């Protein structure tokens, strides 16, 4: 399965809905999307990963890169994820301490710190 990406705006947040597999082949598309959003002035991103079937370290690298970019503009990058197999990858790499991870898009949009 390929990667699907769609974006929408809720208040000052930009929701990036990601579906499919994020791996060494598809991660560059996600990177481009995040770079483009930041270049266009969207600094508060919520990446909704509920439709993601597979995530590897290349995908993690892209998310960390996105976080670096938004932070340079005092922005934020929040994740929405409830899938245990995806959360596990964040845990074993210690990235649960780096990314705010929320149970729903509404929760991520409402979060302020």
């Amino acid at each position, binding site marked *: 399965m390929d990667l699907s990406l769609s974006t929408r705006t809720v208040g000052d947040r930009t929701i990036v809905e990601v579906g499919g*597999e994020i*791996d*060494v*082949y598809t991660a560059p598309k996600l990177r481009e999307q995040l770079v483009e959003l930041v270049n266009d002035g969207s600094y508060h991103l919520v990446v909704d990963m509920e439709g993601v079937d*597979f995530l*590897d*370290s*290349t995908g*993690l*690298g892209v998310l960390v*890169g996105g976080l670096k970019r938004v932070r340079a503009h005092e922005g934020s990058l929040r994740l929405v994820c409830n899938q245990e*197999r995806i959360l596990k*990858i964040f845990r*074993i*790499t210690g990235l649960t301490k780096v990314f705010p991870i929320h149970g729903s898009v509404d929760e991520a949009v409402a979060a302020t710190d």
Partner: protein
Amino acid sequence: MAIVELRFSALPEHVRTARLVAAAVARRAGVDEAVLDEVRLAVGEACSRAVGLHVLHGIESPVRVALIEEEKKFSIEVGDGTSAAATTDGPDASSPAPASSSDDEAEGDMGLAVISGLVDDVEVTADDNGGLIRMSWPVTPEPVLP
């Protein structure tokens, strides 16, 4: 012992194929369903890392994956061609790194971190043929019917 071998050109789009094949063979070998996600992720990480190294060093040989079914364990070996490149091109430190290489190598390191976090039985070695990551999982013996 039964073996399935896979060789693929170092292209990112083939890593998914390697994941699918590895998961299919692991399932057939009796690796627990709950562990198949780990197998899929670990082999993907090892293959992504190998592809990255081949691209970085301009190695044209294919990435090698061996899926080995033994009596009590299932092993995956992912081999790259790096040591051959290291002897012909010299160590990385001798030439200035391209701008993107620190990010790429950081991702490669993160790949290894994921593998060692996921897999209890993992070995990373290198010889004249290149680098090799060997990972093993226990297999559940088929229930013996009365």
